[in-house]
């Protein structure tokens, strides 16, 4: 038959229907090319996210915009492509405000899932802290442009009965965002509105009132996890005989939730204490470093000048610096103030807020009080960080396993159940 073509993907030969989209051909043959914008075969393809970047006959291009032809040679998984793909996801994380713990779509989010999938713990790109429009104008929908990744799915797919666009791109460059046409949106049925929310690969399009209907833990990408308990390795015990490993911990601009999680291994903690000695840490209430430590564990980002000093001291006094929790890695909840000027924040908190005393007009300041920074910074924008443990909070077993494996200098692969941002 003439419309069957022979193609090579990553060195293996396959047969496929001529002219079919490469991402779909790969999928039919059990090969996975990650994508975000591609949700079904549309013509022309959207080709916006560029995550499906592959190499076709030595030239890089996006898989979703490539039609298969006789004799084509495709590479999906060489190291450069894997790195490029990961980088694009990281770019999306850095460009928008993706705070999974406070996002309605967490667990149903395609981008979050790709993040897990590619083992992203931190974005190599500095966070931009986007200040785009959050549009509540429509009676039924919310458009959170800071989460939008401009995949164009909604623009392509959601139309009124007479074929008019409901969503459209406006502006250009970094300012590009999706705008709702309120008049046309009102014409959609409730099912169509829900469909719009469900095809959004992130939490940008939300239907008011039902965003939390599906409980966390039972969502599309949630897996019921039975995490195993930490077993202290015999090898580790022997190694530490001549002296315990010294660990220091601190919480900067965080909620101490990550520290609570540290204690969540219950009685296993006693085993941990056999090989680990805590130095400066809120767990021991030791305020000052008394010696050089093997590992420093830091929770929280930097919101004030004291945070910066403590973090820098940790970097100096700890051979290996591990930051854990979302706040330390990308600023987390405290970083939500990054979209508002510091002045406004302070006035709201101390002068104009509903709970402030009548006539209050003083914003606390003294040479002994740390100064607030202009915004909340993730730890890796201040000092070099050796390891990142994402999660809000990270699973207790996960934290201790990472530490154990660092001390043992062993490679450690993370199970999906333990590895969650939210």
């Amino acid at each position, binding site marked *: 038959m003439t419309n069957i073509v022979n193609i090579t993907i990553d060195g293996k030969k396959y047969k496929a229907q001529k002219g079919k989209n490469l991402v779909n051909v790969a999928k039919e043959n059990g090969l996975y090319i990650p994508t975000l914008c591609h949700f079904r075969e549309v013509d022309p393809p959207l080709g916006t996210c560029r995550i499906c*970047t592959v190499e076709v006959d030595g030239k890089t291009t996006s898989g979703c915009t490539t039609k298969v032809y006789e004799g084509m040679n495709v590479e999906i998984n060489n190291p450069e492509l894997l790195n490029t793909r990961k980088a694009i996801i990281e770019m999306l994380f850095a460009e928008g405000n993706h705070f999974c713990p406070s996002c309605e779509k967490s667990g149903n989010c395609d981008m979050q899932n790709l993040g897990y999938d590619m083992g992203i713990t931190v974005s190599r790109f500095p966070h931009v802290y986007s200040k785009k429009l959050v549009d509540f104008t429509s009676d039924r929908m919310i458009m959170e442009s800071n989460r939008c990744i401009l995949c164009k799915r909604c623009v392509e797919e959601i139309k009124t009965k007479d074929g008019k666009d409901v969503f459209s*791109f406006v502006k250009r460059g970094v300012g*590009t965002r999706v705008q709702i*046409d309120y008049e046309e949106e009102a014409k959609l049925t409730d099912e169509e509105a829900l469909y719009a929310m469900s095809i959004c690969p992130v939490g940008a399009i939300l239907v008011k009132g039902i965003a939390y209907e599906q409980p966390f833990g039972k969502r599309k990408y949630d897996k019921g996890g039975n995490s195993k308990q930490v077993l202290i390795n015999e090898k580790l015990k022997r190694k530490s005989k001549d002296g315990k490993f010294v660990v220091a911990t601190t919480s900067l601009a965080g909620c101490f939730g990550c520290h609570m999680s540290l204690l969540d291994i219950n009685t296993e903690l006693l085993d941990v204490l056999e090989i680990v000695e805590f130095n400066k840490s809120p767990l021991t209430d030791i305020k000052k470093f008394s010696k050089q430590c093997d590992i420093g564990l830091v929770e929280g980002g930097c919101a004030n*000048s004291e945070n910066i000093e403590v973090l820098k001291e940790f970097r100096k006094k700890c051979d290996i610096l591990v930051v854990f929790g979302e706040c330390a890695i990308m600023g987390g909840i405290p970083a939500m103030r990054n979209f508002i000027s510091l002045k406004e924040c302070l006035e709201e908190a101390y002068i104009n807020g509903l709970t402030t005393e009548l006539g209050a007009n003083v914003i606390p300041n003294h040479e002994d009080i740390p100064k607030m920074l202009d915004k909340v910074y993730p730890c890796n924008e201040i000092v070099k960080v050796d390891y990142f443990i994402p999660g809000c909070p990270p699973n207790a077993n996960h934290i201790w396993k990472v530490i154990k494996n660092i001390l043992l200098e062993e490679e450690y692969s993370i199970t999906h159940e333990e590895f969650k941002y939210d």
Partner: protein
Amino acid sequence: MDRTHLLNELWQYQLKFGFISDKAISRISKKLNVSIVEIESVITFYHFFHQKPTGEYIIYLNNSIISDIKGYEAVKAAFEKETGCTFNEDGDKEFSLFDTSCIGMSDQEPAALINFLPFTDLTPNKVKHIIASLKNGENLEDLASKTKSKIQYHPEGEKAIIFRPYEMGKSIEEGLKFTPEEIVNKISKAKLLGLGGAFFPVGYKWNSCKNNEADTKYIICNADEGEPGTFKDRALFQYLPGLVIEGMILAGYATGAKEGIIYLRAEYQYFKDKIEDVLSVFRKANLLGENILGVKDFDFEIRIQLGAGSYVCGAASALIESLEGRRGEPPVRFWSATKHGFRHKPTVVNNVETLAYASRIIELGEDHFLSMGTEESPGTKLLSISGDVAKPGIYEIEFGTSIIDLLGIEMSQATSPYFIQVSGPSGECVNNTEFNRRICKEDIMCGGSFMVFNRTRDILNILRNFMEFFKEESCGVCTPCRAGNYILTEKVKKMQRGLSSQEDIEEIKQWGKIIKLSSRCGLGKSSPNSLIYAVDKFKDYFNLKIPPTNEFLNVEFDMEDAVQEFDSFIKDTQT
């Protein structure tokens, strides 16, 4: 209403009222039977369309790097002081001020457009005078500058191809002696390349359009000259508009197209009427219209379509989108334009300069063209030279001319050249060890922009200007170009503040490569070029900018800067 008229419709409102009101948008959306937001999506894509009222005089000041080194900051401050308005805000009843990307005036910077009339070689004093005169009610047209660029160099006598005497209709008369097939062969034989910057073989394009059967075909003249630093297409239209038009007519004859469109960038609309005049002269001489010069069934008409301020529309595929009344996003296509282009019909999109050369090749014969230049790139090329040179302007040079010759006493007379940007921000920078490189296909190609910077210019400032340009002009559709260029801009800014390490240099190269690999169109694929080249080619400069690496602490954090906001706020509350 036909969607292809959308840009013109929007222009009518913009020029008449200074903005496009919600009412107007609603009216247009009904006419086209599309949603309101779809019209808004087009309006907000183009720089020169406004949705909020603007002043009687809209001033667009060029913020390109050449403008910057020639005194942009002072001129900008003068405009703000004299008008009492702030840049990039809505302005008042009288004035609105906006920054804009290169307006094709690099030999006369700083330059601005006031209601789309050019004002060049601006100084704070000149600005003061202009604004005072406008407030006095003087006529804007009388105040505007003459903008013809100086033709600083062309080969002697017979050797000049473009800048030699022009006789209207000569190349068409000559061309009609041949069959369309023969015309295409002549162009192919002359190895003419697309001179807008992509250097795609023109003969191949024409031939492919010719061979694609269709009832209608189009010839589009790409006059969306947006690459910062180039102004040769403007000069061509001002000196030799007929030559360009004849190129279009010949392309029509060769391919069987009967309709030509000049996509003129909005920045050049002050000579739109002059081109219209030339077109009427052509019509009167039966060089346009029906049965041209008595050749039966050889019909050809040309109209002008105004762009609306978008760099990416200079790319053929985005230009066609724009012509069809949409956002100028380079589309995902499985066809070339010569098969399914404008209105899905076979279309040739050629740059202004390319069409002018096509005319001359037919007029003078391909052998004359082939006798000059290099093996792979025969003939001559127009360059727009600007920056730190004594003689900025237009140069017609033979392909194969070396950079050192271009900088020398015979030509532009550069003063201690240090950083040369060939082909604009999307091109390549050249340091002084490479001055013997030659402008030709075999070595380094140049689309037209040739910017010279001397030793006193700060390289990071140049690069930042380039990155800000791409950040602004990216269409925003694909991730690497939209987010990547933003992230690289922030990186350059950080380096400017002295907060960088060797790691930043490595990251620029790695991140730039990712953007180049994965972007959707030429803009993203070339935007990090200058930055990547510069960190390697100007190592000495960058070494001075980078402090010795500190083993533990990232040196990039500026505590003083981070607490400055708090300090000043507290200070305010205490006084």
